């Protein structure tokens, strides 16, 4: 993450140039109060968009195929909101494990240890190379393929015997399936972030005696976050919708399957599709708001621009700092 400092350094000098001293305010010229530029193009464009939007909404409201009364009836139906909760929890859990595993895989991929590198590469090759739908079907069959798990030293001693049927519900199989697939994509996103951080950062941290782990956690990862977050937001939103594939496991308690089942009940799929879409859009909006704040947090220090508060603090300090000067 190159901070560009070459050659432009003189811009924010030591704060001791004459024009900004405390006495300068007395004879400073009046602030400019210019008449803002007129921008008719914007108004015309806005008018066209509003008219089109109105026409669309009017059409939708009057078209009986949308069946708005059914829509209104089912939007907050207990079964629907519960299914929406399942979708949300699947998304959050799968992304959580996907991100954690992705970070581990990315670090392994960059590690000097060749065994770790190849394991990571093989994992990526497999999970990115097969469709997530196929993987989910496979996870559903897992309990059939491996009916029991024996823990122990192979052929010698057995500590424990577990029936897979009791161990994993379809819900958790869906979480695992989605998370493992996601980890492969997250690994590449995290790797791109880590390699985008300037080598000098790692060097400076090591020169201070920080361990590899401290350097990663405190110095490299926080800077990599700026690169990692936007595509991760993408992944999160895409995961929200990928959860509709878990019928392959088969898990049918999430939003899409549930609304489809209800559509059979009402004989009209369109309002139920609208119900599902509304919920997806609602969650997506919340996630986007979260992303905005995360991005703002990790962008700190990235720009020369300062917040109003920072500028005020500097201006206050200037009064004191000026007289003191440099050593």
């Amino acid at each position: 993450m190159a901070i560009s400092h070459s050659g432009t350094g003189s811009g924010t000098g030591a704060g001791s140039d004459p024009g900004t001293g405390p006495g300068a305010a007395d004879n400073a010229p009046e602030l400019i109060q210019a008449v803002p530029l007129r921008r008719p193009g914007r108004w015309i464009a806005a008018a066209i968009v509003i008219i089109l939007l109105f026409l669309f909404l009017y059409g939708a409201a009057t078209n009986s195929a949308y069946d708005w009364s059914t829509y209104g009836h089912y939007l907050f139906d207990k079964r629907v909101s519960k299914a929406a909760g399942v979708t949300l929890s699947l998304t959050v859990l799968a992304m959580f494990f996907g991100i954690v595993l992705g970070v581990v895989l990315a670090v392994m991929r960059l590690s000097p240890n060749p065994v770790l590198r190849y394991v990571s590469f093989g994992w990526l090759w497999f999970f990115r190379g097969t469709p997530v739908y196929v993987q989910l079907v496979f996870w559903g069959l897992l309990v059939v393929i491996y009916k029991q798990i024996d823990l122990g030293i192979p052929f010698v001693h057995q500590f424990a015997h577990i029936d897979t049927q009791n161990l994993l519900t379809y819900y958790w199989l869906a979480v695992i399936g989605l998370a493992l697939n996601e980890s492969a994509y997250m690994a590449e996103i995290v790797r791109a972030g880590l390699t985008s951080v300037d080598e000098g950062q790692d060097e400076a941290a090591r020169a201070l005696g920080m361990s590899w782990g401290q350097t990663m956690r405190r110095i490299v990862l926080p800077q990599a976050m700026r690169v990692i977050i936007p595509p991760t937001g993408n992944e999160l939103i895409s995961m929200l919708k990928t959860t509709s594939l878990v019928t392959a496991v088969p898990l049918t308690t999430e939003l899409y399957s549930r609304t489809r089942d209800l559509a059979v009940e009402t004989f009209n799929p369109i309002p139920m599709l609208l119900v599902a879409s509304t919920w997806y859009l609602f969650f997506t909006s919340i996630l986007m708001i979260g992303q905005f704040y995360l991005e703002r947090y990790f962008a700190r220090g990235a720009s020369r621009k300062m917040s109003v508060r920072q500028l005020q603090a500097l201006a206050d300090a200037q009064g004191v700092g000026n007289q003191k000067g440099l050593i």
Partner: protein
Amino acid sequence: MAEPMVRSELVCKNFGALRVLKGISLTVDRGEVTCLVGPSGSGKSTFLRCINHLEQVTAGRLWVDGELVGYHERGGKLHEMPAKDAARQRRDIGMVFQKFNLFPHLTALENISEAPIRVKKQKKTVATDRARELLDQVGLSDKAKAYPAQLSGGQQQRVAIARALAMDPKLMLFDEPTSALDPELVGEVLDVMKELARGGMTMIVVTHEMGFAREVADSLVFMDAGVVVESGKPREVLANPQHERTKAFLSKVL
């Protein structure tokens, strides 16, 4: 005289087939300032990086404060040093880089207090108070909350020096600390370094600032193509270089 702070005996460094250092021998006594000069590519940075084990020496021996750098010697054999021990050696050696390498996501104050808190396990309040003292010492007490991108080059480099000092190093390494700076900002950084030298800090400085070398350094080492060509008192070397290569180089930078 006690054990010197840095003792280098025939230090060599190869990158694969490329031989960069070809037997560097020199000593730096406690409290001394040594300036390293030489043409680009002569291996000055590489030698500095060997001293705090950012690069591993491939032949010869290097001691800092009487301790072998980067290896344990047991039963007449050298063993590669575990990362933990190398980190322990590094934390007593401060390093200042040409490109500052401040942590852009931390404020000036946090840049300075980070390593004492994480590495030395100092209490946050203690480390922060000390960081404020150091900022004051480099003349930047009003910039505690500024991020590096909001500081001028000279200010960034002074924060970087304060960051290195926060670990209470016994040796400071400077790799061309002023060569990325606009001319009018060079002085403020050199002033901080002079102050440090007067305070008795042992320093090795790679620089092209011959004025600084003449005024502050106890010895001047001229390197070329991975060897020490000549060394001595700065005034003597600068006024009366013995070697052709030294003469040629000095005629360009003076």
